Structure formats: structure tokens, C-alpha cells
């Protein structure tokens, strides 16, 4: 089993998943950001709803923006959120 990773959620992703953060063991088979997103979709109804429209979901690995096609690496924290609307 892999090292546990902290997963954090913001805005409507947080609301749909039903929590702001969790600690999870990711399958060893996940090698890209896209793999992680596909895995999230498979984790039940709430996750499937939250991760329904993948193209609009942004991911940050250890607080750095990452494209879906980037390798996952070994982050301690993965964040999932919609496009940002600050300023």
C-alpha cells in the first residue's frame, strides 16, 4: 500500500465531496494527474458528481498548479478546485 496522501477540496468541489480534506491511500497504479482524477470518479456517488466535468477541474500538487497530463510524482498534498475567481 502507498504512503497516505492529504487530499484537499475547495468551493463546489468541497461541497460535492462533502468534506474539505481527507487522507487517502492512492493505488500504486496512478502515474499522472489524469489518473488521479479518474480514480476520484470511481470512489462513489459523491465523488462521481464532484468530478463529473474533468476539463474544468484544477489540480495543485503540493500547492503548485499541475496540468492533467503531468506526472503525479510523490506529493504530500493534492488539491482539487474549480477555476479561480478571486481579485
Amino acid at each position, binding site marked *: 500500500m502507498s504512503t497516505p496522501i492529504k487530499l*484537499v477540496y*475547495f*468551493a*463546489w468541489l*468541497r461541497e460535492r465531496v462533502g468534506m474539505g480534506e481527507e487522507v487517502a491511500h492512492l493505488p500504486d497504479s496512478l502515474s499522472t494527474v489524469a489518473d488521479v482524477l479518474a480514480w476520484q470518479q470511481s470512489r462513489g456517488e459523491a465523488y462521481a458528481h464532484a468530478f463529473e466535468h474533468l476539463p474544468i477541474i484544477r489540480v*495543485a500538487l503540493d*500547492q503548485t*498548479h499541475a496540468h492533467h497530463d503531468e506526472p503525479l510524482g510523490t506529493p504530500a498534498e493534492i*488539491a482539487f*478546485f*474549480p*477555476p*479561480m*475567481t*478571486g*481579485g
Partner: protein
Amino acid sequence: MTTPTIRVQAEDFDLAAETKILTQGRHDVGAVASFIGLCRGEGDTLNALELEHYPGMAQKQIGTAANAACARWPVDGLTVIHRYGKLYPGDQIVMVVATSRHRDAAFDAARFVMDYLKTDAPFWKKEHRKDGQEANWVDARDSDDAARKRWE
């Protein structure tokens, strides 16, 4: 290179006080460009805006934009403050102030930071309406992506 000051806070800010910190006691500054973003009432339909942020990364992303501005233009001082939490129509949300010898650098740096912050800093706005309808998350604007691209 100038080290920008970045603050992510719930409290209000005072542009005049922040400007004074950058200009006081030095006579090489000829230009001060600044920007304040305010919470709009949306035709009196908005009760409040809830600003969620990603602690740590919000500060980091604003810092990245501010450092890039200081590397690109001859900026003497740069301060960026972004609030989070519940804000009401008329409230201040964000401020940028940039100082330089000349006005072009000050204007460019302030606007660059605002454009990058809009698309790259992890903040999300939720609108609470006066009519009691369910609160909604504000959609990102395509024009903000376009504004960011003009600096590439």
C-alpha cells in the same frame, strides 16, 4: 530586486497607509499606481460574498505574480493584500500598490499582478442573494484568461 509585501487576511486594509509605507522617507519614487477591487451589490440583489481561499497557496501564488512583476519592471515597492471571509457590497476585497521612478513601470506592475491574481490565485467567490435563493459560486470569466494572456 524589490521584495514585495503580500498579505492574505480577513481584516480590511488601508491603501493610504500601505502607500505611505512605500513612499515615506525616500525621494526616488516618482510614480504610485494602485488598484482596489470592491464587492459590488449586483443591482442590490447581493447580500454578501463569501471568499474561500487555499491558505498557503494563495499567499504563494500572489507572491509568484508579484516577484515576476518586480523582475520585469523597475519597481521600487509593491504591496498586495487580498481578503477572505464574508464581505458585503462596498467592502474592499483586494488592493495592489506599485511604486517606481516612472509611471509606466508602476502602472504595468499593478495591472500585471491583478491580471495574474485573477486567474492563478486560489480564491473562490460564493454569492449569497438577498431574495433567499440558494447561494451560487461565481463562474470564472473568459475575459480574465484573455487579460492574463496579454502579458505572455
